[in-house]
């Protein structure tokens, strides 16, 4: 497989300016940041709501909003330039979508659930993919120092990835679990669905329930571990080289390679979980 990347002139200018700015900031950052300061801690704010819902992670919210804007812009652009004979951009998007569609079609046995599962899985895939890719680019973010005071991370960290926050992953994993069971109830009826818990015999009931609960835990923690762990690893390694150029490659590895695979794994597992529940 041969791949070639072509940049237009404006993209070249943008990339050039970006790397020059990155070099300047890297030089400015040189040796400035102490290592354990704030690593493993994030910025949170309190709002007047009871119990655990009273705290929010502002960086996650901001980056999610940004990602939503980017994705919706891409979607609107896709619809605007939709042609029967596709352009290069359109055929690339179509390739990804048809790949996901074929995957869903192979796994999900019930014909009428193919489209909803396709919608859910592809949305998950796109959101997580873009979020992980954003986590592979050095960027600007707000972190906290060890004392608890806020500080501005100027290219000493990647963009804050929403999937590097456990909230996102757990929410999506639990959502997939609920959706799979809702679809199963819709397809089989309540009685048949309840029977799956005591199959092959009633002794297996606790095992089945534990199995169902284990699904979202492993599902969410896999992604979270990859992205958050990778982020901290990269932070440590880039501290070792005093924030010079080398981390770009590490960021690229953890962000692009692992990020793409994990996004695919997450959506693939979501399809598989839903597909297993939809089997007659």
């Amino acid at each position: 497989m041969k791949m070639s990347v072509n940049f237009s002139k404006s993209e070249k200018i943008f990339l050039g300016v970006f790397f020059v700015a990155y070099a300047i900031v890297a030089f400015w950052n040189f040796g400035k940041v102490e290592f354990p300061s704030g690593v493993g801690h994030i910025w949170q704010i309190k709002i007047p709501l009871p119990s655990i819902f009273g705290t929010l992670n502002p960086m996650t919210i901001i980056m999610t909003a940004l990602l939503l804007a980017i994705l919706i812009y891409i979607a609107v652009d896709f619809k605007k330039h939709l042609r029967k004979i596709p352009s290069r951009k359109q055929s690339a998007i179509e390739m990804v979508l048809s790949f996901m569609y074929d995957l869903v079609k192979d796994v999900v046995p019930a014909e009428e659930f193919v489209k909803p599962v396709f919608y859910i899985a592809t949305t998950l895939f796109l959101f997580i993919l873009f979020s992980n890719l954003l986590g592979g680019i050095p960027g600007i973010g707000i972190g906290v120092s060890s004392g608890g005071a806020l500080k501005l991370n100027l290219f000493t960290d990647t963009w804050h990835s929403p999937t590097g926050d456990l909230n996102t992953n757990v929410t999506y994993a639990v959502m997939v679990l609920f959706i799979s069971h809702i679809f199963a109830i819709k397809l089989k009826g309540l009685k048949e669905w309840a029977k799956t818990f005591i199959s092959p015999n009633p002794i297996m009931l606790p095992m089945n329930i534990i199995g169902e609960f284990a699904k979202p835990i492993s599902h969410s923690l896999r992604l979270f571990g990859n992205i958050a762990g990778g982020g901290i690893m990269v932070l440590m390694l880039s501290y070792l080289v005093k924030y010079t150029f080398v981390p770009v490659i590490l960021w690229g590895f953890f962000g692009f390679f692992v990020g793409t695979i994990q996004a695919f794994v997450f959506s693939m597992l979501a399809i598989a979980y839903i597909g297993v529940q939809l089997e007659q």
Partner: protein
Amino acid sequence: MAELSMAQAVVHAAKYIGAGLAMGLGAIGPAIGEGHIGQGAMESMARQPEMVGTLTTRMLLSQAVAESTGLYSLLIAFMILLI
């Protein structure tokens, strides 16, 4: 660094030891698992060279799944170390 009491010092030392053990022992499982996956993929690639593309994708996928236990231990190590 501020002066630490004996108890605090013991906790600090235990943190580092625990994190190291968690990471080191936790890496064994995924390493063996990924090795097996890689072996299987290589063997099947040698048997059916025309399937290399599909097998590579599947191999990466299953390795990513097998690696998750290692990442759990990485996470635990960070949690012990940093929080």
